[in-house]
């Protein structure tokens, strides 16, 4: 990453500030690569997919996850402490009657370690402003039309609290193993803007 040739004005300004910080000993050129590598390895939606698949096949884990997600995640070798501060994870599960969707109206709070880097739309004012006031309309923009009888709950994340949505297990998946089930889950499903 340290030898990129992006010649846009902002890229030049970023390089300029990096050089100043390096000169002052506040930044180590190799540090940036280390941070990015750690970020790429630790923040993956595959983690969230595994958590959901385990909850689908193991009722005990599912109960522990819903009760205290921070305590349950280490069972899969995961934690909410990998970022700059530990966050409380609330797992809000979809049911026949209730569909959950997550947002951060103030900024971009998101469970990175379980969902990977957040998409630009999640950070956009269009999504953040509208999903809290017109969730059904926003979900339809994602191609998700819910029955009028389904209640939609919108969870607003913040600096201390993050949310993740386990989708409902699809019909006809009884014979599948955990890895196959995990492959059915999508990033948008974990946000609540897709059914699975």
């Amino acid at each position: 990453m340290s030898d990129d040739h992006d010649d846009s004005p902002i890229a030049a300004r970023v390089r300029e500030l990096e050089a100043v910080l390096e000169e002052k000993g506040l930044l180590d050129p190799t540090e940036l690569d280390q941070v990015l590598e750690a970020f790429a390895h630790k923040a993956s939606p595959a983690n969230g997919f595994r958590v959901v698949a385990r909850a689908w096949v193991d009722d005990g884990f599912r109960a522990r996850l819903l009760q205290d997600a921070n305590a349950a995640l280490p069972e899969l070798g995961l934690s909410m402490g990998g970022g700059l501060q530990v966050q409380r994870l609330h797992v809000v599960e979809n049911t026949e009657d209730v569909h959950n969707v997550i947002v951060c109206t103030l900024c971009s709070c998101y469970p990175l370690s379980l969902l990977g880097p957040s998409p630009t739309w999640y950070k956009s004012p269009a999504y953040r402003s509208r999903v809290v006031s017109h969730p059904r309309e926003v979900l339809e923009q994602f191609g998700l039309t819910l029955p009028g009888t389904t209640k939609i709950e919108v969870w607003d994340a913040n600096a201390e609290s993050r949310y993740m949505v386990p989708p409902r297990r699809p019909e006809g998946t009884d014979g599948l193993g955990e890895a196959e089930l995990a492959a059915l889950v999508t990033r948008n499903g974990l946000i609540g803007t897709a059914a699975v």
Partner: protein
Amino acid sequence: MPRINDVGGRDGFGPVRQELDEPPFHADWEAHVMAMNRALIRREVYNLDEFRDAVERTMSHESSYYENWFRAIRTLLEEKGVV
């Protein structure tokens, strides 16, 4: 008075635009801004709450996400006399 970042329930931002197969960063400089911020917080040049506050008071809806981050970092470094 709510800050500019507090958009919950506000009108006028248009439909949500999804980008299919979106990469984590759209340019190297965005990754550098993200990494620079983590490094500065880890070194306690400023803390995470100060960073959030700086984003909220300096951001513009016309700027991209990482442009807003970069403006906030610069602002904090200037205010703290680092640069």
